[in-house]
């Protein structure tokens, strides 16, 4: 009698675990598809890359000002 009770309890617990896994899996799947849809509009994390040397030059007026830049003399204004 006692053994039967234990078997039932183990079976019940097993069912609950399986149910929990199914629910969590379903939730995760649903959540994942939302995440994919949102990925298009929500900024994603991009790790910064050390650009200290670039910044040192490009924020210096005296350095950038000394660089001669050739104009491409674009023909802007031709459009409608």
């Amino acid at each position, binding site marked *: 009698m006692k053994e039967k009770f234990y078997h039932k309890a183990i079976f019940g617990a097993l069912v609950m675990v399986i149910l929990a896994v199914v629910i969590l899996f379903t939730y995760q799947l649903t959540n994942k598809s939302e995440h994919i849809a949102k990925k298009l509009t929500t900024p994603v994390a991009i790790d910064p890359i050390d650009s200290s040397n*670039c910044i040192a030059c490009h924020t210096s007026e005296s350095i950038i000002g000394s660089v001669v*830049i050739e104009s491409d003399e674009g023909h802007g204004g031709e459009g409608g």
Partner: protein
Amino acid sequence: MYLVSKDFLETSHGQLGCINCHAGENLPTQEGAHATMNPYPSEDNNGICAQCHGAVTETYASSIHYNLHGMENGLMSFASTDSMPDSPAHAEVFDKNCMSCHATCGECHVSRPSNYTGGLINQHEFFKTPPMEETCYGCHGARTAGEFMGEVGFSGDVHFELGMDCMDCHNIDNFHGTGEVGERMWDEALPSCLDCHAEEASGNSQIEAHNAHGDMLSCQVCHAQANNNCFECHVSYNEDKSALKSASDSKLMFRIGLNPNPTEERPYKYVTLRHIPTAANSFDTVETDMLPNFDEISNWKYSPTHNIQKSTFQNESCESCHDNDKLFLREEDIIESDSKDNLRLIVPRP
């Protein structure tokens, strides 16, 4: 030109570091740092911008600012070939001339269009709404934007004088596209004067002239001013043949004509016209007889000219328009190099 402000470094874009977008190496010498650097990271529409702004870059691929389908279809309608790949000569013209107006994300939101002057607008600041005078004007300055801002022609547009810019009338879809690839600008949901001035629609208006003319006239017939017309554009190669540059005469004119292509949205019988520079021999530099359909399509086009004023010389009185032949497209306006199709736009004289 390539100076970056320290304030920019505090922004979400600035905190990424230059190399995330521009590649290159964090080295102390210009040669080393720039060896693999990409000055125009948004040239690849699916590149770095798409990482965070994928919804925009996805629809932008369908935008005529990106793919220039309007120009492509305009060119192909004058030609006899159905598609660009069938004709290397047309592809050459398109790639080396029309395509120079192709805009990237960066060319509106960070820098001026490279076809204009290029260069950062304001020390690498990102503009959610690009400043019209630095970006739209860069490509549309000779006509639409120039007229709107009063830089071309007579007075600017009353809407500009009241502080409005392109984005106040044009929906974001007109810039970023909708995801549906259009054939030309006219396929898009363009602004209508009645969006804001519904009370002036024919039948509703307190102004007798509005009710009397109904849908016969586009608003610009009475409210626009002279526009800039270009003639006999002839493209020629630059020194290294990497680009085809154009040169055409231009003239300020005001011409009312019959609507070349009435549609449900624009059913008007009479519209303001503008001469486009294309001539039958425009692309002879590349190959002769490239536009065999030239005489089938008018090169005077419907122009919703963007220099609106409430009072104009043509709406001063009934006579200023009805008795004034000079306002209408006339046979003598059609020049030797023009399309014969223009003749159907001439308003019959009483």
